[in-house]
């Protein structure tokens, strides 16, 4: 069974259709890149998938549950990392971990063992009691990602997780994404960095609320006869930009 199944998913705001009948399937353990220019409808689509926004029509199943009728089950089985930093600056690393563990219903013992494991993995044991606000951005983002995976969700949604992070940390971040996928977690990620898009197993490019192209990076490059995803993106996004300007 697919981890994410989206059928004709639509969201209208008044007369404006932000997401226009999109259909996507993502297999379990896949790293799926969800691309699109600003305002193409990415964020609206993600909000529907994680239960922050009700669809106008169409349906979506995440981790096997219907987003509209089984939203509680969806919430328990997904992780989410937003483009804004999602931990609390005035709490320590360990306190953030126990907060999220608690919210997701882990037992105290589980929180302790998984927390220790996480800290060891990130090499953050010595600063586990430092306030998160004092950490460099790259560390914060890696920590936020690890915390989003603490309850071992079937699907994790990452909304521009590497914004403002240096290239070395971005690389490390993608290694973490691969490791999670290798453990069977489905990763649904949006990004503005086209080099990162190349790392995805498959990706889709949204233009004006519709999915304009979808496939593996290699297939998309072959289809458009170009050397990089960046060029694919520009080909697809440019007509939309021109139309918006005119």
């Amino acid at each position, binding site marked *: 069974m697919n981890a994410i199944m989206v059928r004709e998913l639509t969201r209208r705001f008044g007369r404006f259709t932000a997401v226009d009948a999109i259909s996507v399937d993502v297999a379990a353990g896949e790293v799926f890149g969800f691309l699109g220019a600003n305002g193409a409808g990415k964020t609206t689509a993600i*909000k529907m998938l*994680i*239960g*922050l*926004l*009700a669809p106008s029509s169409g349906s979506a199943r995440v981790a096997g549950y219907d987003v509209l009728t089984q939203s*509680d089950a969806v*919430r*328990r089985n*997904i992780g*989410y990392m*937003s*483009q*804004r*930093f*999602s*931990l*609390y600056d*005035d*709490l320590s690393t360990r*306190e953030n971990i*126990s*907060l*999220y*563990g*608690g*919210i*997701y*219903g*882990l*037992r105290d013992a589980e929180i302790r063992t998984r927390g220790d494991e996480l800290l060891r993995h990130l090499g953050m044991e010595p600063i586990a009691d430092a306030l998160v606000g004092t950490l460099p951005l790259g560390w914060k983002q890696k920590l936020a990602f690890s915390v989003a995976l603490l309850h071992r969700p079937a699907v994790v949604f990452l909304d521009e997780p590497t914004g403002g992070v240096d290239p070395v940390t971005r690389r490390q971040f993608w290694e973490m994404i691969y490791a999670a996928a290798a453990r069977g977690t489905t990763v649904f990620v949006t990004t503005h960095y086209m080099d990162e898009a190349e790392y995805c197993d498959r990706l889709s490019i949204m233009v004006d609320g519709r999915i304009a192209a979808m496939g593996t990076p290699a297939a998309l490059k072959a289809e458009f006869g170009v050397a990089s995803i960046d060029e694919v993106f520009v080909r697809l996004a440019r007509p939309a930009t021109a139309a918006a300007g005119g």
Partner: protein
Amino acid sequence: MPQPTRRHALGAFVVKELRHILRDRQTLTILLLLPLAQVVLFGFAIRTDVNDIRLAVVDPAPDDATRSLRDRFTGTDRFRVVASAPSAERLEPLFRRGEVDVALVFAPGFSRALATGAAAPLQLITDASNPSTGSTMQTYASAVIAAWQRERVTRAPASGAGGPVVIDPQVRMLFNPTLESVNLFVPGLIALVLTLVSAQMTAISLSREKERGTMEILLVSPLRPWQIIVGKVAPYLLLAFANVLTALAAAWLVFAVPFRGSLVLLLASSTLYTLVGLALGTLIAARTGSQLTAMTASMMGTMLPSTLLSGMIFPIASLPLPLQLVSHVVPARWFIVVVRGIMLKGAGLAHLWQELAVLTLMLAVLMVAAIRSFKPRLA
């Protein structure tokens, strides 16, 4: 995931909120000291009772009677004779320069009229440039004269059955016999501090989550909207309790404000009122975009009405009619009646149930509205 994890989730959330509050030492210190500072400041600065009243006595023909009344005034610790004059003409410049607050003017025939039982001419002039202190001084002075009159009658019963019948307007100031304004302020201050802690702090704390983007994470998590609200609200309820007790202790220790009713009833009512404020704060945070807007909105929407339209400073009856009507939806208006009732009159549930019912109704309406506005899907 098994079902019994729910309570744990709320617990983890409350712990987080407590950590936020305890970690922000500056805000916490301010919030804890606020009731103390407010009671002391209001108590000393804005009291409307008047202590050192400067008295001018105009006595064209001093005799035993006029002297004894004059002594009566100086015998109280409120009045101090600063000027004596043979005629009333000298008074105007004294009042104009603000050197005298009250003048006691005996007419030349005062003692004779008194002896024959005719109306004894005596004039009391008060500087009423501040109407509130003016009427207070007038009341004090009248009380002194009335006491003096009473004493004369009881001392001279020998004047016989045909003697003058002195009507004794025995004025008793119920519940607040010495007219201490601080007694009236303290209940209002408790309401004010609770409004600040509950409505404003929740509004700020919730909108901070929204602004920083952590609210999104909470809404995506298995936490339910009511759990988020309860988790936010619970720690502030504790803080509110501490504040009520501090305000009461300060009022009692510094100003000897009486406490005649049930402390349990007061704390229960304060809890109710705090919950109303917390629901209001939640609603404000849900409807506003940023911390700054939430702060301004809660200031305008809760603090100002709680100060001005609640009867704390200005009596409701003296407000213009439209504002009197508006005051009905101000929670502090009802709460202050309750606190004054409990503290000063020793009133119980039997007398205060209407006000408490109004507050309960407000709480129900606001709670429903607050939880509704937090439903993420409405976005």
